């Protein structure tokens, strides 16, 4: 403990150096902005910054990048709540209840709880990270292909929570996402699948393109049509900007559970903030006494995924700092940046570059506090977005989406795909197919297929490997429970209603 305090004191001496506080603030600001803009995510944000990092001290560079990564999670919820367009993949789930809250004139509390939840989740996760970084990273390595597959099945089972009126339609949407995930070079055989000889498709369909098309473009199309027909419901700016004490108390459980789930999933290499947010939402809905309130503007439905995605970001840093293993595309970029700055990532990082590791951990507290201070007053400003006339707002969303898609990949094909997804998304919305499951399928599909096939290579083709490993079995059982739980509950309730009548 004494030793740890010494490390932290040193860390804060690095993090609170004026220049590093400046970098943390810059990262937080840029991150929030990137988070707010749909289509531009942490990966592109860091990619844009990497050239500027040359020649910077490694600790400062990492503080800047982490502040940015973190800021994107704070900002990602903003457009999800206000205009039903997620700023990041990890804020897709937030649209479900967040946008409903905005329609009811409760955009202010929704934005505030997202910021407060992010803050609590971030702070608690950093404490975890400080205390248990190395043992946690070691534990995460025990997760093998079979466990990953089962974890993804559990993730997929959360579809039942995302389903609106019809589970069938939710499943069709999921399968659509899973099918999209098969495009590209098949990692297990090296065969190019569904690429139509287009080299741009060899790496698969970019996640950003699908999410932007399905959500942002379709939202714009729908808005045009509804405004013409005069039936567009606008989110209201009336009502309180601030959170009431009761709302905070209601959300606290969701925030803490979201933190736990998010952090744990974040520590596992290859899982990530998006999966964490879906799973946290699912757990929250399952535990609620009134699950039917979710999807209709329940504040817990905003608090839980927004806490989970911030906790996952911190969790993501654990394998990177303690083992030198990147757990997501964003941390892979950070690893590249470290190498570029002449720092060898690896298990010795804490001893060799304590300024980078402890300084970074301390600066995460700093960034977190900054982001809260920055974001709470911004709530008042963001809510004003709803005052922008529609004929300006929707073209603006479309323009930003185009920039987000094209600016990152420089690929025209991505732009066409985005428009295509927009039409598909429009059709799905018109016919009540939920969009979130498609995104879930696309995110999970690749990892799920890959881990299944890795597990089968290792077990020489025996599917028992999924059952023989205790952790994998537990995850599969949880997934099964998650799938049948809603039906059991309804059946049980029916019984209770019918019984007295008999």
């Amino acid at each position, binding site marked *: 403990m004494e030793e740890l305090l010494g490390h932290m004191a040193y860390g804060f001496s690095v993090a609170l150096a004026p220049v590093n506080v400046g970098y943390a603030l810059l990262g937080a600001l840029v991150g929030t902005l990137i988070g707010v803009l749909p289509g531009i995510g942490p*990966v592109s944000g*860091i*990619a844009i910054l*990497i*050239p500027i990092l*040359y020649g910077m001290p490694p600790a400062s560079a990492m503080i800047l990048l982490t502040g940015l990564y973190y800021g994107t999670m704070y900002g990602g919820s903003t457009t999800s709540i206000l205009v039903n367009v997620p700023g990041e993949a990890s804020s897709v789930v937030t649209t479900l209840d967040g946008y409903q809250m905005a329609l009811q004139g409760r955009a202010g509390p929704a934005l505030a709880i997202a910021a407060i939840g992010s803050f609590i989740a971030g702070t608690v996760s950093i404490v975890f990270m400080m205390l248990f970084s190395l043992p946690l990273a070691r534990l*995460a*390595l*025990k*997760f*093998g*292909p079979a466990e990953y597959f089962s974890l993804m099945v559990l993730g997929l089972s959360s579809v039942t929570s995302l389903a609106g009126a019809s589970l069938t339609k939710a499943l069709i949407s999921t399968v659509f996402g899973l099918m999209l995930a098969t495009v590209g*070079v*098949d*990692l*297990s*055989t*090296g065969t*190019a699948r569904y690429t139509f000889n287009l*080299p*741009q498709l*060899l*790496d698969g369909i970019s996640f950003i393109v699908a999410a932007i098309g399905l959500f942002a473009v379709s939202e714009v199309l729908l808005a045009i049509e509804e405004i013409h027909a005069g039936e567009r419901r606008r989110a209201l700016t009336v009502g309180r900007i601030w959170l009431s004490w009761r709302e905070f108390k209601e959300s606290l459980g969701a925030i803490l559970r979201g933190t736990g789930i998010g952090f744990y999933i974040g520590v596992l*290499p*290859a899982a990530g903030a998006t999966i964490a947010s879906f799973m946290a939402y699912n757990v929250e809905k399952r535990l609620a006494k009134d699950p039917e309130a979710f999807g209709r503007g329940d504040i817990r439905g905003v608090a839980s995924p927004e806490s989970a995605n911030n906790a996952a970001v911190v969790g993501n840093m654990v*394998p990177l700092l303690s*083992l*030198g*293993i*990147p*757990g997501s*595309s964003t941390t*892979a*970029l*950070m*690893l*590249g*940046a470290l*190498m*570029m*700055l*002449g720092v*060898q*990532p*690896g*298990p*010795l*990082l804490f001893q060799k570059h304590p300024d980078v590791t402890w300084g970074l951990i301390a600066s995460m507290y700093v960034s977190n506090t900054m982001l809260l201070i920055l974001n709470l007053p911004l709530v008042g400003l963001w809510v004003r977005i709803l005052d922008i006339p529609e004929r300006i707002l929707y073209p603006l969303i479309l323009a930003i989406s185009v920039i987000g898609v094209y600016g990152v*990949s*420089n*690929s025209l094909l991505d732009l066409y795909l985005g428009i295509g997804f927009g039409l598909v998304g429009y059709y799905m919305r018109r016919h009540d197919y939920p969009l979130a499951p498609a995104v879930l399928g696309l995110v999970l599909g*690749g990892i799920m297929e*890959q881990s299944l096939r*890795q597990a089968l*290579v*290792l077990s*020489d083709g025996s599917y028992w490997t999924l059952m023989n490993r205790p952790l994998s079995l537990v995850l599969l059982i949880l997934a099964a429970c998650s799938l049948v739980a809603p039906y059991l509950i309804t059946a049980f309730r029916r019984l209770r209603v019918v019984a007295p009548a008999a």
Partner: protein
Amino acid sequence: MREHPISRTGLCALGALLLGASLASPGSAGFPEKAIEIIAPANPGGGWDLTSRSTAKVLTEEKLVTQPIAVSNMPGGSGAVAISHAITRRKGDGHLLIAASPSLTFTLALKRVPYTYKDVTPIAAIATDYGAIVVRKDSPYKSLKDLLDAYRKNPADVSVAGGSAPGSQDHVKFAKVIKAAGMDPTKVKYVPHQGGGEAMASLLGGHTAVAPVDISEIVGQVEAGEVRILAVLSDKRLGGSLKNAPTAVEQGVNATFIVWRGFYAAPGISKEAADFWVTTLGKMVKSEGWKKTLQANKWFDYYVGGAEYARFLNEDLESGETLLKELGFLK
């Protein structure tokens, strides 16, 4: 500080003179006459990005190129998108360089795009990394011989964690070693992962037995004693913290794997432009700034330029294709 108006004009004139002089010095014919673009065919933060940005930096700092150099990223299909772009859109553009490495060779060998190195203008290889075979510190395999004996007994016991699809770099590294030891490389139990980081996690977590890696990426793990190097796939032992790591060659297995890093240009560029790049990169690798870059990135000194490089690439591609045929990836 207040400036005298005359001094500003004077400075401008002097600047223009200097600029003119420096532009005229290399090649003296005026190439390059506009801004240069270097394409990294991958996302920022990876090896190709590092190659491109380091080169841009050193060329500028050593004043070997006075025109501004912009690095852009064009990810997709391990170099497939960028090479298609160069061939179909940028024919004859001498102000463009694209980073390459054996990943591209396998992209071409596996016929991901209908091109070969003959469709572009090879410039030079400027640095190299080496393949290596590593195990966990607590692995029963103490030497390459132990590993090969285990493979001889039952290939299925030796699971191999790679960071790319079968038939790509990591798979081929291992297959080369098995083949050089006189065994059947088609029996390799290869478990592909999405990138070297995930493969390393699989190895360290005990899910797989060995990992074929690029040595620069695991220096941190070696120094921490987390992994043991069974064989470095270079001709001679490497220096520094790797001096105790034996090569495959010295253990009687004649397998090497050079992870060269270099550049090619678009097809049909002028001879002047091609010559300029070959000589300029040749000057660059001798500079102090480049030595520092090699150290920082844990790369090794290596230069092959011009016609020799083109020969080298074509041979690389042919031998890659031969090996892939043996492994059953090509008809």
